[in-house]
């Protein structure tokens, strides 16, 4: 079937013939490899996107079910050419090791900051409970994001 949706503000159309996920659609059909594919069972959060305003795992969204929806991926999280405050904070703090989890963390953290611009460390940890960093760099990530409000306030 033909799936029409809005991705990062742009209307897109794709043909979906199999019960694949939105993650596959984004990566394989739409050329947006920022969302990572790892567990495909909702455990790791590396595929996190904003779907119709809600943070979800794109691996658990049936591609055909995204018909008519609006999706924001890590590629669209900031203005073109600029960094989102969350990205800037993580970049400055060096809160990235291999970087595999980073896109998912950025999307989940951006979702947190949208509703809570001054989160505590506990709130950050709770908001990132669905994101696994296999390099176990959690300390640096949480410290970076604790400072992210400073960047956002500037």
């Amino acid at each position, binding site marked *: 079937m033909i799936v029409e949706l809005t991705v990062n503000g742009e209307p897109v159309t794709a043909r979906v013939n199999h*019960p694949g996920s939105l993650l596959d659609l984004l990566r394989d059909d739409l050329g947006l490899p920022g969302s990572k594919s790892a567990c495909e*069972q*909702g*455990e790791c959060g590396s595929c996190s996107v904003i779907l119709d305003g809600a943070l979800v*795992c794109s*691996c*658990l*969204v049936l591609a055909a079910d995204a018909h008519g929806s609006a999706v924001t991926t890590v590629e669209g999280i900031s203005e073109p050419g600029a960094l989102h405050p969350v990205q800037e904070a993580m970049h400055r703090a060096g809160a990235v090791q291999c970087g595999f989890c980073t896109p998912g963390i950025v999307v989940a953290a951006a979702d947190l900051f949208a509703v809570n611009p001054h989160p505590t460390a506990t709130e950050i940890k709770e908001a990132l409970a*669905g994101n696994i960093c296999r390099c176990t760099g959690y300390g640096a990530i949480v410290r970076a994001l604790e400072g992210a409000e400073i960047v956002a306030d500037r």
Partner: protein
Amino acid sequence: MEIVHPRSIEEAIAGLSDGAVPLAGGTDLMVEVNFGHVRPENVVGLRRLEPLREWDGSRIGAGVTWRRIEKEGPTALAEAARTVGSPQIRNAGTIGGNLGTASPAGDGHPFLAAVDASIELTSAGGSRLVAWDEFFVGVKKTARAPDELITAVELPDELPERQAFGKIGIRNAMVIATVCAVVTRSEDGRTTVGLGSVAPTPIRAPRAETMISSAAKPTDADLAEFQRLVSEEVRPITDHRSTEEYRRHGAGVLARRLLERCLR
């Protein structure tokens, strides 16, 4: 594969009549799809079906997400919602999907058992209310017929004043319960205990309930007896997540602690 996006309950039911699979948040179903365990030919997409997301007092629409229940639900159900998966899972996962899967470990179930909730099933022939203990018939088996949609959860109008949910697992977030439980206590002392992950379906602990309901001011000895009876009444198994012994012990300890919270 074909998907329909119904705009009304009637359209959704019509969509189900040719063997289509209902899809709500996808947090259970898509795991099965991704791992090749199911390959649905026809899907009825419920995620944006507004009538299924209506929440009217004691009637919670099947399409209400854990995220919303976490914020707006009755105390112990909200506490349960807060432990479901992660923010991503709670944003997508619904109470109706939890019931559709009917995992013995479903975190929504102990509350429904403890307050004697009913599940509303709707087909072309109309709606029927099924009591929770008739709805769950076995491990991942329910009384729902393939042409029926789970449309709502119906709670009693009056809920017990005191209620608490607890869950034992190997970590705080993202954990399938080793044991989960809800204890409620009313002003008159009537106590109920709903338990999950300790039997093929959610269960109650009737002997423990009767014993402690008659104790107006439970003593330490009463609490110990309550704990012992709960442990005796559960029917857990040993599997990859835990052992029968640990679950039996944990169920008693957890129920007692939740009761203590209700008594405070």
